[in-house]
């Protein structure tokens, strides 16, 4: 082949190249189609079970909709929200939510962290703690609530009552007194979920390299100093993550409170989540219940926004 012929072939090739889509596109397109085929079913299901109901929920929150009085149904505009802002029970449930969430999360993290540090330092018996810690976490909150309500907190024969009497504190109506009932549901939630914080933090502690502690010892840091200056900062991401995860769960806690107090006595343990449920499915006021659920969503978003901002802060 002479030179000009070669040049001709090359030029032809170049032209062919220009006519065709660029190869990177072709390859990406193939990958995209494959990805789409894999993603589509799951994302359709996700949209159908989360995004669509969310939109529907917002829509119903603008309606008067009561299943016991369907003849009254109709568009209500912002009425539900206006009612909500003037509803003392809403504000109270918001307050209960705040108290419940803040106290359970703080207790879980503080106790969980303390125990994690304690157990991490143990040379033997860690396995026992891990094993026991699994138990509450895997249980149904409804069953946990039932167990506590029936066998721990029952006034006449419950173990807690017995211990209180033995300790000289006297018998109490643990679930009948508004303050004690709130304390009880907080204790139950803390009991069930502290092991979660404990396990996560213990695993994070175990993942920290040993040599930094050795270095700290050589730098003559005391145990407390190395906890404050080394352990805490290194665990911070895990701690913050635990706080965020536990906060989301506490805000939407339902089963344990439902089985233990049902929100009572009165509305003493009625967190916003439970109020939305009761309004919708006990009082059948779906429209107003939807507005309450939207309020809960907004509250959740605000709280998580604050938490995520805090995470980024330092």
């Amino acid at each position, binding site marked *: 082949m002479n030179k000009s012929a070669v040049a001709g072939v090359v030029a032809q090739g170049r032209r062919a190249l220009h006519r065709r889509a660029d190869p990177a596109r072709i390859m990406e397109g193939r990958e995209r189609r494959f990805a789409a085929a894999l993603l589509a*079913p799951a994302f359709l299901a*996700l949209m159908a079970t989360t995004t669509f109901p969310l939109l529907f*929920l917002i829509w119903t929150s603008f309606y008067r909709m009561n299943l016991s009085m369907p003849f009254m149904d109709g568009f209500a505009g912002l009425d539900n929200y206006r009612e909500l802002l003037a509803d003392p029970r809403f504000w109270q449930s918001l307050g209960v939510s705040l108290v419940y969430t803040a106290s359970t999360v703080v207790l879980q993290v503080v106790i969980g962290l303390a125990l994690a540090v304690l157990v991490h330092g143990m040379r033997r018996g860690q396995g026992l703690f*891990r094993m026991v*810690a699994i138990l509450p*976490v895997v249980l149904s909150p409804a*069953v946990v609530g039932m167990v506590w309500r029936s066998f721990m907190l029952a006034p006449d024969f419950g173990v807690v009552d017995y211990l209180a009497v033995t300790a000289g504190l006297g018998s109490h109506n643990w679930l009948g007194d508004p303050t004690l009932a709130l304390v009880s549901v907080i204790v139950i939630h803390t009991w069930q979920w502290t092991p979660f914080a404990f396990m*996560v933090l213990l695993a994070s502690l175990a993942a920290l390299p040993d040599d930094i502690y050795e270095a700290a010892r050589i730098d003559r840091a005391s145990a407390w100093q190395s906890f404050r200056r080394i352990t805490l900062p290194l665990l911070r991401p895990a701690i913050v993550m635990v706080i965020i995860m536990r906060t989301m769960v506490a805000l939407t806690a339902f089963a344990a409170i439902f089985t233990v107090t049902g929100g009572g006595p009165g509305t003493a343990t009625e967190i916003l989540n439970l109020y939305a449920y009761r309004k919708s499915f006990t009082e059948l006021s779906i429209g107003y219940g939807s507005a309450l659920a939207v309020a809960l969503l907004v509250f959740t978003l605000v709280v998580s926004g604050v938490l995520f901002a805090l995470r980024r802060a330092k």
Partner: protein
Amino acid sequence: MTAKRLRLGILIGVSGLFLLAWIFPILWSLLNAFKTEQDVLAYPPKLVFSPTLDAFRDVLFGATSILPNLASSFIISIGTTIVTMALAIPAAYALARLRIPGKRWAGFYVLATQMLPPVGIIIPYFLILRNIGWIDTYQGIILIYLSFSLPFAIWLLVSYFEDIPFEMEEAAFLDGASRLKTLRRIILPQVQGGVAVTVVFVFLNAWNEFLFAVVLSGNTVRPVTIAMFNFVSVEQTLWAKLAAVSALAMLPVIVLGVVAQKHIVKGLTVGAVKGGGRR
């Protein structure tokens, strides 16, 4: 030396106390399941008693047997697990592995769906399922269980898929395997552990779910967690039977928890530790 000993003693005492606090309520309710009604109600609480299987016999084979409810719980949990995994595995693989535009947004979307309070999902879905007659049906409850199991499963699986080196897949392509074959022959066998962990979690979450079950259950779909209320009423609570039902409801998840203990800790921490490190 003595001060050190003392401190050690206190530490062991404190940690032992917490150990007891966690295990006692569970053990106590299990114990009560082996008591007679009188023994349950005894004051002070009885630690020593003559055990009986009466309560178990009654709740399993008596007039109000909870066997159908256990079956119902299993159908819901297994059904949810199968559907969830079938949808989540391909999606997680694509999110973890493929170069696609908007991947970050897709991941964020999966995460964001978990922010939605369940009560906000069940209100509209109650209306929808009522309209299409799916209240008290398995398809209805499994469908809505996807709202929490699917994002969780995708998220957990992605972290396992991400652990497999890219080169493994590329080697398979060069060996002539198609994408689907690579996924089946090379990738999936390597994430078996992750799939197992995810299955355990999805099963547990479905077994333990309560809010959706309360709203959607009826005579057909009636899991144990709902059925245990049969033994509690204003007039009379059947304590020993309630304890037996609780024990039966706890049994599968405790067995699962103990068997899959290591995996569960990993599953719990994947989100927290990894997520904390990277995102």
